[in-house]
Structure formats: structure tokens, C-alpha cells
């Protein structure tokens, strides 16, 4: 079985470095491993891919992607910015805080960090520059704050984890709220400290009347989060159905209420959503073949035995896992990293020695891989942030550093204090 693991790793890394699409890299390295194991690789990979993409639990993915696109084009971002501005612009580093909060809300609503960076960054980075903020700092704020949307529900990456690990989507959604807010809080702390140090000026308090006005304007957008979360908790529909309701509601907002999207734009939006879905889901399908061969060859057990030999201290093992994931996250996008490492690490952490709840582990993994979204060389949030801010990765790296520290700090808290993740799902009775 060590030969099989070797074949899997070496061919995977070689094809990855040769810029073969990741989904096909996963499929073809599994193909070689299945071939070596003596099975029929043509049939097995095709079968696993078909079975892997057709799982009913993955159904929310196309829907949250579609509703994210509808929101992005539907004029929801500018309304959220106005609201956040009227409430917190008078703090030191006010605009940076506005940026963070809006990214959090928009990321939360759309479930896409990249959508948050492009929609919010497009408005906020030029505006912050006008007010005398350093552009690279603004890009750093936007890119990191946007990742919180993956921890605050709804979130596609949580759905992928739920399907990969067998926990419920509802439990994941509830578990992510506090860690998501925690990361946001750590980022805002960095903003305030930087603002005080660099003397970024605060805005003026606009008065409660203006706040009420901008709240009224953003109300219909904010209602979406109430509908999705409230609908699930209130027992009107399940998480899967909530995603379809989110599509219907964002369609209503974008096409009928705000009228920013025309009916004739819909085919193009459907196509865009379909493509984005397929990019994520082809990786899911391919990783299903990888997971089959890993399981049949008992590789997860092998790795967990190895890790337990290294140390029998849960704190150290979790640290090793976190460092591994941070390294993986620098080079790999979130979805493939999560798909590949969940079946490997989950048996380790849920063993009696560590006894971590699978929901808690999922939150830790996502919080960890969120950091990777902002690190070079592969970081989609960082790329999009530099794109909308018209700056370069090397220039953003320095202002990014304190934000990394803040995110790592939040990650450690999330890792070692289970209550942050587990308290909400437990009181709601979702962890049975």
C-alpha cells in the first residue's frame, strides 16, 4: 500500500506543478493508483466521478452559487456598504471597518469569498484611497475579511465538508457563526491598531436618522439571511431547500425589486453559475475516486498510526495537522484541499485519543484553509483583491502580515476551544 500512496502523491504533485487542471490531476493520479492496485481504472474513475457528483447533499452548491451571482449583479453590495458606513464610519479607521463588516455580510449572504472581494473591493478600495488610506492596506483588508463569509452561513464549502464527513449541513452552518465573527473581530482589531498608528482619520457620526434610512434601503437584502437561517431553524425548510429559496428570493430582489438584472440576462447568469458549479463539482467527483482508492488501501489508518507514533499529545497532533493544512493551503485551493484531507485526518481527530467532534474539526479545517485563500502563490482572494485594487501581490504582502497573524490567532482559539464552534449547534440540538 505504500507503493500506491507513493504513486498517488508523486503523480499528483508532478501534474499539479505542470499546471494540469486540478480536477483532472486528481482524477488521473487516482487513475494510476487504481491501475497499480490491480483494479479497472477506466471504469472505476468514471463510476466514482458519476456517483460523486450526483449526491443529493451537494445540491445546494449550484443554488448558492447562482444566488451569489444574482446578488452580485443585483445592486445589493452598494446598499450594504451604505448601511455599514452610516453605522461605524466614525470609529478610528472607520472606512476599513466598514470594508470589513460589508465583506463579512456580503460573504455571509453570497457564500463566496471571491464574490465578496470583487463586489465590495470594487467600491471600497477606491473610496478608501480617496480618504487617504494606503491602497495595499485596503486590498489586504478586503481579501482577508471576505474569507469570513465561508465560516458564516450559508457556505458552500461547509456543504462539501458535510457531504465528505457525514455531519449535517445545519450543524455546520450554526457551528461556523461564532468562529466567523471571531475572525472578523480579529481583523477589525488589526484595522483599528493600524489606523491609530498611521493616523487614518475617522469619519463623522451621521446621526440616527441617516442610519435608519440606510437600514431601510438595505432591509430587503438583509432579509435574505433571515429567510435562510430563520427558515432552517424555524422548521420551514431544510438546508437544501433553503438554497433554492435563496435563489428565488435573490431573483426577486435582483429582477423585480431592484430591477438591476433583466430577464434577458438570465441565460448568461445560468451559464455562469453552471460553469462555476462544474469547476467545483468536477473536483468533488474526481476526489471521490481518490477517496475510494485511499480507503481500499487503508491509507488513512496508516497516516493516523504514523501521527500517533509521532506524538500522543492531542495538542501537538492538532498543531501538526494545522501546520500541514497551512502549508497545503498556500499551494492548493480550498475545495481540493478539503476533499483530499478530510478522509485522511478525520479518523485521526475523531479517535478516542483526541475525541474531536467532526463538526468542530470541519470548522477548524475551513478556518485554516481560509488563510490559504490569501497567501501566495495560490490564493484566489488575494488574486482577485490585487485585481480590483490594481496592485501586485508583492506590494500587498507587507500590510497583509498583521492580518495573517490575526487569522492564525483566531484559528488557534477555534482549534483549542471547542465551545466556539460547538456551543450554538449543541444548544440547538443539532449535534446528535
Amino acid at each position, binding site marked *: 500500500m505504500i507503493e500506491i500512496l507513493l504513486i498517488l502523491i508523486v503523480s499528483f504533485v508532478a501534474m499539479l506543478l505542470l499546471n494540469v487542471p486540478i480536477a483532472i490531476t486528481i482524477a488521473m493520479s487516482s487513475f494510476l493508483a487504481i491501475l497499480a492496485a490491480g483494479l479497472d481504472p477506466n471504469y472505476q*474513475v468514471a463510476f466514482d466521478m458519476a456517483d460523486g*457528483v450526483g449526491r443529493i447533499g451537494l445540491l445546494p452548491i449550484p443554488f448558492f452559487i447562482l444566488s451569489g451571482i444574482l446578488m452580485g449583479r443585483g445592486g445589493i453590495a452598494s446598499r450594504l456598504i451604505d448601511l455599514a458606513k452610516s453605522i461605524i464610519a466614525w470609529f478610528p479607521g472607520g472606512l476599513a471597518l466598514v470594508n470589513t463588516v460589508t465583506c463579512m455580510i456580503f460573504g455571509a449572504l453570497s457564500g463566496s469569498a471571491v464574490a465578496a472581494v470583487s463586489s465590495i473591493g470594487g467600491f471600497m478600495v477606491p473610496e478608501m484611497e480617496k480618504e487617504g488610506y494606503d491602497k495595499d492596506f485596503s486590498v489586504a483588508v478586503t481579501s482577508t475579511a471576505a474569507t469570513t463569509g465561508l465560516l458564516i452561513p450559508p457556505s458552500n464549502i461547509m456543504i462539501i465538508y458535510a457531504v465528505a464527513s457525514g455531519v449535517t449541513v445545519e450543524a455546520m452552518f450554526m457551528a461556523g457563526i461564532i468562529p466567523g465573527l471571531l475572525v472578523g473581530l480579529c481583523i477589525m482589531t488589526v484595522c483599528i491598531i493600524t489606523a491609530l498608528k498611521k493616523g487614518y482619520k475617522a469619519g463623522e457620526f451621521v446621526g440616527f436618522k441617516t442610519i435608519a434610512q440606510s437600514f431601510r434601503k438595505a432591509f430587503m437584502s438583509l432579509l435574505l439571511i433571515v429567510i435562510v437561517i430563520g427558515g432552517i431553524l424555524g422548521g420551514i425548510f431544510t438546508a437544501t431547500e433553503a438554497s433554492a429559496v435563496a435563489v428565488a428570493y435573490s431573483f426577486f430582489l435582483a429582477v423585480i425589486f431592484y430591477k438591476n438584472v433583466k430577464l434577458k440576462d438570465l441565460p448568461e447568469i445560468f451559464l455562469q453559475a453552471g460553469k462555476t458549479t*462544474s469547476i467545483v463539482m468536477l473536483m468533488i467527483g474526481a476526489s471521490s475516486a481518490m477517496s475510494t482508492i485511499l480507503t481500499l488501501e487503508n491509507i488513512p489508518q496508516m497516516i493516523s498510526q504514523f501521527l500517533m507514533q509521532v506524538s500522543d499529545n492531542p495538542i501537538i497532533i492538532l498543531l501538526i495537522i494545522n501546520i500541514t493544512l497551512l502549508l497545503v493551503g498556500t499551494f492548493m485551493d480550498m475545495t481540493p484541499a478539503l476533499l483530499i484531507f478530510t478522509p485522511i485526518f478525520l479518523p485521526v481527530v475523531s479517535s478516542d485519543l483526541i475525541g474531536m467532534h467532526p463538526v468542530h474539526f470541519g470548522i477548524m479545517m475551513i478556518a485554516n484553509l481560509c488563510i490559504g485563500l490569501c497567501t501566495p502563490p495560490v490564493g484566489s482572494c488575494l488574486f482577485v483583491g490585487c485585481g480590483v485594487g490594481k496592485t501586485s501581490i508583492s506590494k500587498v504582502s507587507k500590510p497583509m502580515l498583521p492580518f495573517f497573524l490575526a487569522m492564525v490567532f483566531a484559528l488557534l482559539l477555534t482549534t483549542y476551544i471547542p465551545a466556539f464552534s460547538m456551543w450554538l449547534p449543541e444548544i440547538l440540538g443539532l449535534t446528535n
Partner: protein
Amino acid sequence: MTSTLLKLKSQLVKLLNALVIITMGLLVLDVLWGVLSRYLLGGQSSWTDELAQVLLTCLVLFASGVAYGKNEHLGLDYFVGKMDSSTQIKIKCLGNLIVLIFSIFVLIIGGINLVINTYEMQQVMQALQIQKAYVYSVIPISGFFFLIFSIESFFEKECVKND
């Protein structure tokens, strides 16, 4: 040769685009109907879930063809990006070759085997009462699209000499 391929590709892309848009639309309607039927008819139809599963499989396989045709699948271009342009072209051609192998062996041969096998075993989807083999047939179909697009890409990147 190249112009024929390009024409073929643009026709196929149009067809695939239409398929993706229709499947996506049907998927939204199907799941919304599942929620509505529960509240309006007092009981959910059993076929909505199974149909959604079928549509999701079709959507992913068709749309991933579109995304490949547009070169939109995620890859790690960092290291290749640092190389000189002539090496970059060679590597792109190799990547194309791997996609070609993937489409022939996994999607087309593996997919056809899967369809034949499932057809012989007469596996039926319970709620829809259709043969599962029909659902699996989207794999070799999408394999055909991947194959054409990767061949076209060979000529486009001048991995093969044009005549």
C-alpha cells in the same frame, strides 16, 4: 483542418451552453417544486429528489465541458508562469495530452463500460422508473466534448503543425 475544427467547436459550444442553461433552469424549478408541493399538496412527490440528482450530474458534466473549452478549470500556473515561453508552450501541450488521455480512457471508455454494465444489470431508478444506464450515458457524451476541445486546443497551441 484548423478552421473546420474551430467551426465544429463553436457549434458544439453553442449546443453545450444551451444544455447547461436548460439543465440549470430545470434544477431550480424541480427543487422549488419539492418545497412548494409539500406546502400546497400536503405531501412531497418522491421524484423531485431523484430528478435533482440526475439533473445535477448532467449539469456538472456538460458545464465542465464548457469550462474546459474556455480554459476556466482551476490549475496551478505559478511555476509554469515563471518558465520561458517556449517551455511554457511545450508544457501546455503536455497538459492537453493528459486531458486527451483522461477524456478517452476515463470519460469515453470507462463511461461506455459503465453504461453497458449498468444496462445489462437492468438497474432502475426507483422513483423515476428509468434505467440508470441512461443517466450514466452523459459521461461518454461529455467525454466526446472534452475530446474535441482538447484536439482543437492542440492545433490552437500549435503543438501539431498546421497544413
